[in-house]
């Protein structure tokens, strides 16, 4: 019994040291608040857990997660300060740490601070820019657009085998370049957007989004409405303990283990009984939402459907698929390293004490610690929407009430939102957005 307690103590220590970021339950809680439209509550929960859940190790993730409920509440300045911190944190993370890299080979992938993949980084520019646009600050929105264009150009030229361009962010930057009169930059970004849409065409029902330009558009004002919809899939840990001994007999017979997580029991007993290897890898789990479409209605006129312009859920899945090869390679390397550590510890203890039983116990302790620390990296920007939809309307100069209608998968309008007294100016583009996670 004393041995079992020691094993659990080691397991607890290792779990605490794993720095795995937000737990599945935490993600579900925040996600549920956002689904109910309680963005204020979601923001408060994230802020409250800054140190407890994220810590210095995952500060980038904290800023990313926080920025979405802030943006949804139209706290543009706060959201942009948060996103600026996220971009700075990402920049700082380009420094490679020898010890953290080593940690991924002997502990788990969570020993590395969270680094945002390409699509998440690209979206920070979009969100910051959108916030500036809503504050009528085109100059600073354009700064973000230029940063996005540079980032995507750089990524495209340096990352040839991964998701290396973002069609929607390219499209969005082209609109901002048009707004600032930088027409050649706008043309380049639009070409890049079209090329990237062609690359990922299957996500967009075989055709890139297209918006009609009326003949008399020069005499009109334009309103672009973004619908930031749904919940991006979140990562879960998929763990397999491969043991050669019959571990389940022991687990089921022990009443002391009631209430302890099955994964922990599995890993500890697999380790305690010796020859076992725990393999873990992340998997994306869909986070269901019921709003699947939307339309825009101006002053009671005919509703115009929004088009899917960014499939963030598909992008997340594609990104993980591309990362999997490297994740599996590290997992196997880690399993071998941990096995060698166990054998060496067992042999050293046996040699030192001249007692095989002590050696076996030490080996079992190391094995248990190895198994319990084997956690997949389930970190991702989980407050993101699953998709971005867009409507692009041309209207004569004037003031309008613009209604957004939200539909379920049967085409029933289940919710709505009205942007009141929107001023549309001739020759100018106005941007609006609405976040739904229902």
């Amino acid at each position, binding site marked *: 019994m004393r041995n079992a307690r020691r094993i659990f103590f080691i397991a607890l220590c290792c779990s605490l040291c794993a720095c795995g970021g937000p737990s599945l339950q935490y993600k579900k809680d925040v996600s549920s608040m956002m689904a109910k439209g309680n963005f204020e509550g979601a923001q408060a929960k994230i802020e409250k857990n800054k140190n407890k859940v994220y810590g210095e190790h995952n500060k980038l993730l904290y800023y990313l997660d926080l920025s979405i409920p802030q943006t949804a509440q139209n706290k543009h300045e706060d959201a942009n300060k948060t996103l600026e911190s996220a971009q700075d944190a990402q920049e700082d993370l380009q*420094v490679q*740490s020898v010890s953290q890299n080593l940690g991924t080979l002997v502990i788990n992938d969570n020993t590395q601070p969270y680094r945002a993949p390409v699509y998440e980084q690209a979206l920070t520019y979009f969100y910051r820019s959108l916030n500036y646009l809503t504050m009528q600050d085109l100059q600073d929105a354009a*700064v973000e657009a230029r940063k996005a264009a540079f980032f995507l150009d750089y990524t495209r030229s340096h990352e040839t085998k991964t998701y290396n361009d973002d069609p929607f962010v390219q499209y969005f930057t082209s609109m901002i370049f048009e707004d600032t009169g930088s027409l050649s930059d706008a043309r380049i970004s639009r070409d890049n957007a079209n090329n990237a849409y062609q690359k990922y065409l299957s996500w967009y029902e075989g055709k890139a989004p297209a918006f009609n330009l009326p003949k008399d558009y020069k005499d009109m004002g334009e309103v672009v409405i973004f619908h930031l919809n749904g919940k991006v899939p979140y990562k879960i840990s998929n763990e397999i303990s491969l043991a050669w001994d019959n571990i389940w007999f022991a687990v089921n017979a022990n009443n002391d283990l009631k209430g302890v997580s099955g994964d922990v029991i599995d890993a500890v007993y697999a380790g305690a009984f010796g020859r076992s290897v725990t393999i873990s890898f992340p998997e994306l789990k869909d986070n269901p939402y019921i709003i699947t479409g939307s339309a825009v209605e101006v002053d009671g006129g005919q509703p115009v459907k929004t088009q899917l312009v960014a499939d963030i859920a598909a992008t997340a899945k594609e990104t993980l698929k591309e990362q999997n090869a490297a994740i599996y390679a590290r997992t196997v390397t880690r399993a071998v390293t941990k096995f060698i550590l166990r054998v060496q510890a067992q042999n050293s203890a046996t040699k030192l004490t001249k007692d095989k039983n002590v050696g076996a116990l030490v080996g079992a302790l190391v094995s248990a610690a190895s198994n319990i620390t084997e956690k997949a990296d389930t970190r991702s920007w989980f407050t993101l929407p699953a998709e971005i939809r867009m409507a692009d309307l041309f209207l004569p100069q004037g003031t309008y009430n613009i209604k957004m209608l939200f539909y379920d998968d049967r085409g029933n309008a289940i919710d709505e939102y009205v942007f009141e007294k929107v001023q549309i100016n001739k020759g100018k583009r106005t941007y609006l957005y609405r976040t739904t996670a229902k």
Partner: protein
Amino acid sequence: MKKLLALALLLPLVVACGTKVERMDENTVKDLSGNWNDTDSRMVAETMIQDCLNGGWYAKAVKVTKGQEPVVIVGTVDNKSMEHINTDTFIEELQRALINSGKVSFVASSQERGDLRNERLEQDEYASEATRKAFGKEVGADYMLSGVLNSILDKEGRKSVVFYQVNLKLIDIETNQIIWNGQKQIKKYVAKKSLTF
């Protein structure tokens, strides 16, 4: 003994965790991120002031204004770089140096003028007749100062070269002629740490 040892070990950690602030001379050059900073802003302002005051435009301008100081207004300075730069700092510095030179006078910007007009409207209602300021006495500007800040970034891994170019123009409001064009370029090589233990 053990307590003393523990204290000795903990002390450096406690000291290291505290925030350290020290006052610096405003002319000290301190580059942290490699981004545009106060030193760049000051370098641009100094170059522009010299260039502007020594420019041939002034003698011509005085001739046009019949010996009066030319009146200038600050227009917009577009930030076309990849950084959120407050261009007001070097414009303000330039404006201050030009006013202090006694060669030109500045009128308030369009936003400031709007505030002042509102103030005069309120004075009309609330201020005594003796102290009330009248409408229609504003001085119209002869020239507008405007410009653009551009940047070009070249990056490879943790190394980058950033090139800034600031162009300021003085434009004759009546004729749209550019009577002065100042330029300052700054080029920086930034190498960031790529490996740590």
